[in-house]
């Protein structure tokens, strides 16, 4: 589904160049729920922004399905973002002037794909994520958790190959966080979505099938959940983070 090979990215600050990604390689399979963890400055968000095509990588290979993203022009990239990727941001990025339902429909409207079926899917997503009762409300009238579930529904409206989530629980309380993670699980199980999530939160990451831990711009360790219980997996994640801190 997603192949990242030897990805490198550096930022120029004044005359100094800082290499943030120093050759990251990973793969995400269809239907997988993968998290990327790591301390601040490890390159998590940069990796996500490169995969999202928001910023260009310096070198390396990024393939979504059979499409190599670096070879696409501006319009083709926009189409990939619209039709093959779904986005969930830390601060939701809903448009204040649109209702919950209209926000969910937005990627379809941008792609010119709105039909009766699309509207029905929006309503179905509202049902799945428990936001049907607020679908005619505006973002200013709903809670943070509801906003993020709206964002998850929006990310799914175009049947994307991959959902990219940047700290989706970062701005939420624990109850709302649980609701958002549940919505990812539902998306995975009910809608067969593939999810790639960047997070600091070991609780959120413990729901994933696999957790990639980044450190100083490289993959430090990958933990598979397998048949491990969620609580146990969270402990393993915390142990790994502690171990990383000791090294």
């Amino acid at each position, binding site marked *: 589904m997603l192949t990242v090979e030897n990805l490198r990215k550096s930022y120029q600050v004044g005359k100094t160049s800082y290499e943030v990604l120093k050759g990251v390689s990973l793969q995400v399979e269809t239907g997988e729920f993968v998290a990327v963890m790591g301390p601040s400055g490890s390159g998590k968000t940069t990796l996500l922004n490169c995969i999202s095509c928001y910023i260009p990588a310096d070198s390396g290979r990024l393939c979504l399905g059979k499409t190599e993203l670096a070879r696409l022009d501006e319009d083709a990239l926009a189409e990939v973002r619209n039709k093959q990727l779904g986005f969930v941001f830390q601060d939701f990025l809903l448009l204040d002037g649109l209702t919950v339902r209209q926000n969910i429909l937005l990627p379809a*409207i941008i792609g010119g794909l709105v039909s009766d079926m699309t509207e029905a899917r929006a309503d179905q997503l509202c049902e799945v994520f428990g936001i049907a009762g607020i679908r005619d409300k505006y973002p200013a009238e709903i809670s943070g958790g509801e906003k993020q579930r709206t964002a998850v529904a929006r990310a799914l409206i175009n049947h994307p190959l991959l959902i990219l989530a940047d700290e989706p629980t970062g701005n939420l309380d624990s109850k709302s966080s649980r609701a958002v993670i549940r919505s990812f699980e539902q998306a995975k199980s009910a809608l067969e979505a593939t999810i790639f999530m960047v997070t600091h939160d070991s609780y959120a990451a413990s729901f994933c099938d696999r957790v990639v831990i980044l450190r100083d711009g490289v993959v430090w360790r990958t933990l598979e959940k397998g048949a491990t219980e969620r609580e146990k997996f969270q402990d393993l994640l915390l142990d790994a983070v502690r171990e990383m801190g000791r090294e």
Partner: protein
Amino acid sequence: MRHFSEVCALMRRKNKKQYALLAGCCFFSVLLITAYVCMMRAPTVLNVLPEGGDSRKQVMMIFALAVIGCAVFTTYAAGLFLRQKSRETGVLLALGASRAQVWGELGRELGVLSLGSCAAGAALGGPLAWVLWQFFRLAVVDSEEMRLTFDPSAYVLSLAFSAFVMVMIFFLGRRSVKRTNIIDIVQESHKSEPIRDVPRWYGPVGIVLLALGGFLGYMSSSFFILVLHWYPPEGLTAVFYVPALIGLYMILLHTVVNGWNGKKKLYRDLIATSQMRFQGRQTVRNMLVMTLLIAGAYFGSFYAPMLGTGSMMGYDRRPVDYAYHFRADQDIPLEAEVRALAEEYGVTITDFAAVPMLRLAVDGNDHIEEEGPVGTTWRTEYLEVLNSNLFLSASGYEALTGERVDLAPGEIRGVLDAEGTALGFRPDATLLTNYLTKERLAVTPLEPLRYDSLFERYVMNDGDFARLGAGLPDEWRETQVCFNVENCAGTYEFAKALFNEIVDRSTLDVAQFDGWDPVVRDRDIAKDGFYFLDRENCGSAGFTVIDYGQRDSSAFRLDWQYMPEFRILDKMDFVKTLAVFLILFVFIAVVCFSAVFVIAYTRCMTIALTNAKVYDDLRHLGASNAYLRRSVRGQVKRVFLVPALVGTGLIYAFYVMIMYFNGSPAGITSSEAAGLLTALAVIAAVSALMVGVYRLTLAQVCRALGIRR
């Protein structure tokens, strides 16, 4: 909702205040510029602003300021609009909208908004100018020459400015969508506008540079011309004002970034100062434009009170109620006719004197301009026959003034005004010539006399007067008449009748521009074949063509060589005579102050828009309403107060400097002092208005931030 344009329409509805703010700014700037241009290019105004004259230069200078001011605040408003818009642009791009798709909608919105607001501004600018002008006509003064006519070509400038606004908005809009990094666009609205650290010496050094630049800028022209005998090219002297501009920028930068309180009130002003600092670049730019506009507006505002006070004091200071002179070959009313006319109007003449004067040639240094490799230079060349002046005998002077002057043969005394101002008249002739008989007399100039109504005359010994006057024809002789009346204030009708009688009976031979000189004329014709002040050349040389039919026009009253000086007539007709000047400058002040108020209001509302989250955070940290209000007041006050103080102080100091150096000798006369006091009264009135706008703005900002009164 299924189409992208419907999404955009919904967002427009949601953000209608931002659209209204940008449209309002475009409309207002084009409205002001159009109104200004319509006024500035109106034949009514151009007729009274001589080509190349100081008044026209001032009007152009303030116009340039107004254009810069309006351009800056429209650009600022567009930038602000796009910054606020950037979040939704970023979201749309992040969700897969193409740039062409986003630009298609945004471009259409900007096109409709800018075209509509600019067209409305341009369409209403002319009517606004007309309404304001009519208001002034009704409220202040009305005269024939005040009828406002428009020149359609004025709209070319208005259209050019509208085009600039539209191109600028499109350029900024296109640029905002074109940015490649979506992350930057998404986070655009959270970005502050940092400025580098500003050393604390910026403040004092700025003040020194400001003072130095003002002084150098004003004095450089005199230095080049009087000391180096060189006419600098247009614009060179403006370079010397550059340190003033740099100094002004440094002062504002220091005020915004460091403040003037040092560390005394560091914690009390922490929030206000910090927030200002992180929006420093835009704030300083806005404040700089506001300062210059305030200075320009005051420059316009001071014109009327300075001129009015000075002129009124001059009329009151005149030693006689009625004074006029005429060439001896003219049939102008003398004592018998004047008394008869006075009787007709019930006016009592208390004393009457009419004495002869001679027009004699005098020596002096001719001012010769030469073109050379460095431009135009000048030198002087002594000529025994330079130009001509009017001469009174000592007894004649005594008859007119009651003041006895003892002059030995060969002695002369020039006459300055009561304040001893020379105004270009140098009473230092040493050789007099009867231009017709060529009889000559070497003379010694003594200490000048002072008498307003006889300014620029000479007084000479009676014997010399008789000898040099022998053989002079009537064209070279004049009669000076002075008389007083009882209850001068009640003699306007008589004054008007006598003035009309004098004009009606003057022939075209004396329809001459003030300064016309038969001696200079002969020399110029011999040299160049024509004399620029001859009636037929006046118009093309940019001087008023004296037309007896236009006797009530300001041009006629200011420029006719034989214009009588009747105290009551001049006083009563002063406003009417100079109405166009007065109203033009008042109008300019209105335009500039309006621009200042709009810029300040927009800037302050930006504080509310961009800092709303900061005030929410402060509230969460337990800040009281009073604390929040004080913090907002600190910022709003700085936006208003600093440009107002600096702009006002700057222009007042500049005016004092002009008043001090413009006379000879340097100094401030009593009429100038009175004018400066009146200007202070104008400052007080405008400041009161500014305080009103400041309070209104503060209330609006507090309301937007949810801060109670």
